[in-house]
Every structure is written in C-alpha cells, then in structure tokens.
C-alpha cells in the first residue's frame, strides 16, 4: 500500500511532504492560539480546495456553487445534533447520502441535458442560491435567524461530539486534509483518474475511446460533493452557528476556488499550496494594516481579487507548477 502510494514520486517530493507533515503535527505545541486558528482556516480551505479540485482539476467541470455542499453537510449534522443529540460523526454518515443525492441530481440534470461550460457553472450557482433562499425559510433549522449549537466550557476534549480546544479541531482538520490528499492521489492514479482527465482534456475523444462520460462525470460530482460536506460538518461544530445567508453565499463558493486556482488546478499540491499562500498573504496584509492603523472593510477581499487577477494573468497554471519547476520536483501526473 505504501509502495503503491509512493510509486513514481521523487525523493525530493517525499522529503518535502514528510517535513511539511512533521511541521504541521507539532504546530499546536509551538504556535499561539491566534496562529492556530489561522492554521485551522488554512487546512479548512486546503481540504475543500482538494474536494473541489476533483471536480474541476481532474474532471474539468467548473463548479461555482460548492457552498451548497458545505451548507448541506453543516445543516444536516447540526440538525441531528440539536434535535436528536446525534454526534457529528454519525451526522456526517447521514450527510453523505444527502449531499450525494443533491450532487447526483445536479449532475443528472446537467449531464443528461448537455449543460456544460459556463451554463453548468451558472447551474451550480443557481442550486446554491436556491438553498440559500430555501434555508432562510426553513424554520426547523432556524431559518434566517440562524441555527445555534450549544456551547459549554469543556474541561477536556470530546472527540465524539467535537467539543473542545482549538487544538482538537486542528488535528481533526489536519487528519481530514491528509486523508483527502491521499484519496486524491489514489484517485488520480487509478482508472477513474485517467478517465476523468481524458474527459477534461477532450470529452468527445474520451467517448470515442470507450469512456462513459456521463457516468464518470457523475462520479466526480458526487465524490466532490460528499467530500466537501465533511467540511460543512466541521464548520457547524467549530463555529457553532449557521446562517443560510453566510454559509450558502456565492462569496463562499468563490473563496473555495481561490486556493486551488492560485495553487494550481489539477495538481495534488496545488490546493494545499494555494491555501497556505493565501492565508499567509492575508495575515501579512492584516499585520501591515494594523500597523498603519487602517481598518477598511473590503480591503482583504480586494487583495484576494488582485491576487486572483495576477495569477490568472501571469501564472495561469497556478503557483505550484512554477514552484515545482524551481524546486525541481516532478509530479508524476498533472
């Protein structure tokens, strides 16, 4: 298993990965709480970025409505917890078929009817917006007033109920991100990964090569959706409050795609690098602004917009391919 995982990976890359993992493992012991919170966010976006990357980077289907799956995961787990006392892990088990069904529905509508490219992207936006407005009126989960998880001071960490110190959340997210990374690597190098890439490169040629493009696109959407829903479950139990206006908002969907795009769509390291870069730059920006005593709403978003613009114009494949070339690490598959 280990051999299969590391097949074709250069020693440099493995070394880099190992160092990174070690650093991330000891982080909570060395950094302060504020930085820990920032790191949690990095991992959160890195995780979602990887899930989104499966749909876009591997299979070439642009989704601008991934907030839908985060929201569904969050609300499912939260509702089960608040109304029935069911813990988040079981909640996630329930969220899986819910989000899978949703993704399948969207995928079916789109792919059966030949909705592709920009139209597909707009369809994904429409679904997320539907959810946003719909949940605003969904009283059983709080509606627009919000849905709140009970927070008490815990003396110890409760992993089963996901109640506890930031460090616990950090390790949960780290584990999720690491597992996602492994899953993506396995998928990419397997039969399904080849078929996805063929579809991404040239769907017509893929069909002529015997690939059932409808089925494989559906797989991409469903897997991506289910993976993303875990982030939603995490979100619910970490922040303890949910508002449809926020969690389903199109701004969230755009935020999710920033990291993988800046890092590099289609690569394995891309989403991770992108998340780190963005958060680091954002923190740096915050420090600079704090130093200057400037507090302007919108500056942070403007900054992200400019980053995105620069990357799209200058490094369209993302930062990772450029960095990999510099470090002379060859990712065995793009």
């Amino acid at each position, binding site marked *: 298993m280990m051999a299969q995982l590391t097949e074709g990976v250069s020693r440099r890359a493995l070394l880099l990965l190992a160092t990174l993992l070690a650093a991330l493992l000891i982080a909570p012991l060395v950094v302060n709480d504020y930085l820990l919170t920032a790191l949690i966010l990095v991992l959160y976006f890195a995780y979602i970025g990887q899930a989104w990357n499966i749909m876009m980077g591997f299979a070439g289907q642009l989704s601008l409505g991934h907030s839908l799956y985060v929201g569904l995961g969050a609300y499912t787990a939260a509702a089960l917890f608040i109304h029935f006392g069911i813990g988040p892990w079981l909640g996630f088990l329930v969220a899986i078929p819910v989000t899978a069904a949703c993704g399948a529905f969207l995928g079916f509508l789109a792919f059966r009817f030949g909705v592709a490219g920009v139209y597909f992207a707009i369809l994904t936006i429409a679904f997320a917006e539907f959810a946003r407005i719909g949940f*605003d009126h969904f009283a059983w989960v709080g509606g627009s007033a919000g849905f709140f998880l009970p927070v008490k001071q815990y003396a110890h960490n409760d992993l089963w109920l996901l109640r506890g110190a930031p460090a616990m959340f950090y390790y949960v997210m780290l584990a999720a991100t690491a597992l996602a990374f492994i899953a993506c690597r396995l998928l990419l190098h397997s039969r399904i990964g080849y078929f996805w890439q063929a579809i991404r490169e040239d769907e017509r040629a893929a069909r002529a090569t015997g690939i059932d493009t409808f089925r494989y696109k559906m797989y991409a959407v469903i897997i991506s959706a289910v993976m993303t829903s875990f982030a939603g479950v995490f979100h619910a139990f970490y922040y303890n409050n949910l508002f449809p206006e926020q969690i389903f908002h199109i701004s969230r969907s755009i935020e999710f795609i920033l990291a993988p795009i800046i890092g590099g769509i289609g690569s394995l390291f891309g989403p991770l690098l992108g998340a780190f870069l963005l958060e680091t730059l954002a923190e740096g920006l915050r420090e600079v602004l704090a130093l200057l005593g400037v507090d302007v*709403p919108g500056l942070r978003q*403007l900054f992200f*917009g400019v980053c995105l613009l620069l990357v*799209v114009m200058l490094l369209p494949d993302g930062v990772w391919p450029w960095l990999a070339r510099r470090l002379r690490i060859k990712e065995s598959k793009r």
Partner: protein
Amino acid sequence: MSLLRPPERGRSMASRDRAVPAEIYLNVAVSGILTGLVYGLMALGLSVIFGVVRVVNFAHGELMTIAMYIAVVLFSAFKLDPLIMLVPIAMVLFALGYALQAGVINAFITRPEHTQFLLLIALAIIIVNTLLIIFGPDAHSVQTSYAFDSFQVGKLIIDATKLYAAAAALVAATALFAFFRFTDTGTAIRACADNYAGALTVGLDVNRLYALTFGLGAACVGAAGTVLVLIIDVTPQVGPVYTLLAFVIVITGGLGSMPGSLLGGVLIGVTEAMAGLIFTPSAKSMFAFAILVLVLLFRPQGILGRKIS
C-alpha cells in the same frame, strides 16, 4: 453582508390577505413590466458581449454598479437628474468597457473558458470591493423631485420613476437595435459574431470590433444602471446579484437575440414582482432561478434564441 434584493421605494408590497383586489395584481404586473424593461436593457449588454466576443462577462452587474454610483455622486453633488446624465454616464462606461476589452480581456479570447471566467470574476471582486472601500456598505439612493409621483390610468397606478426609467431603457435599446441593423460598423460586428474566420478574411479589424462591442455592452449596462438608481438603492453588493440576474435573463430570452433580452427582462421582472406579491419578497429570486433551470434543461437556446449547434 446581505444579498437580499434591495427594497424598492415608493410602492409597498400587498399584504398576505386572501382577498387581494385584482387591481393590485395588475399594478404589480405593470410595475414588473417596467422594471423588467430596465433589466432587459442591462441583459442586452450582456447578450451583445457574449454573442459577439463570446466572453462570459461575470463582471456585468459590477460594471452597472459603477454607473449607479456615478449617478448617485452626480446627483448628490450637483443635483443632476440621472435621466439627463444617461448619455454621459453611458459614454463613460463605454470607454471603460472598451479599455477593459482591448487592454485586458482580449489576450484571453483564445484561452480556455474557465480562465476567462476567472479573469472576469477577479475583476468583479476588485470592482465590488473598491466600491465598498470608497463608498462603504450603506445604501445610497437618488431621490428626485418626482420620486413619489404617479400616473393614474383607470384603476392602474403607475410610478413616474418606473415609467421614465422604462421609457429611457426602451429608447436606449432601440438605439442599439438601429445601430446594429443600419450602420456599417453594426453590420461588421454582426458579421464577426456570425463568422469569426470569415470576418478576418474580409479584412475586418476584429480586435477593434470586439473592443467596440464590449464598450457598447458596458454602455448598455451603464444606461440601465443610471435609470435603475431611480428605482432601487445601491450598495456595492448589488453587483453580483444583477450579474446573475442578467445571466438568467439572457439565457431565458435567448442568446444572440436582442428582442429576447428585453422579453426575458420583462418576463423576469413580472415573475419577480408577482412572486413577491403572492409569496414572500425574498422568494423572488427563487422563481428566477427556477425559470433558469427549466430553460437550461428544456430549451437551452432560450425563448427567442437560435439553436447553436
């Protein structure tokens, strides 16, 4: 950060009473038609851009927001009525659109689709947040002297502002039709849209025509925005909402069809108004999206669009 539709001024929503008098429905429908014509003008700009340059302008609503703020500033500083400022503001937006296309977007025509979207999404984010920084998140509005006037035609009560806005939109749209139909440049642009390679062969300066088209699309949206400030309040967040709406309208009415955009606009305007009356105001968008999904599935070329192979 709220994405709820900005409240309309001058007309209150009907109560959820069972026995709503017929006049209310009629008034709301007419109100929807008028607002819809303005939406149509906005969507027209998008249709023109997509139909010719084939670029998906994700920053469409944001460009409109720029125009709206210009109108607001000119009104509050110099008491200049937006209806009068229609042409100048449209010209400013034309220049902006032209520059955007020629300077930034043109290089992306040959790039993969998703790269184009991302470029425009980036521009949209930049515009929204720059406006947020300059003007802040609070709503701004334009209250002209005739803001609360209305005309009465039988049982029908029509808002003066909406009527003027719709009239201006119709005039602008007609001017655009005429341009495309009767001028050489307009014909050249239509040629580009129909057959890119052919246009090049005949010696048309396609890049210049593209920039011109983007400028025209931006001018449309500038004109639409200028009159829209008479009807709604403007905040920086209004941009993305209208970008989405423009897409729904263009897709519903039909890509490549100018009358289709106006028709789509009216359809959406009426649907929204009626949905707001019959259900709740916040459900308005849901109906627009429901229509979008239905169109995408069953008639992707839209109501008046031509089937693209």
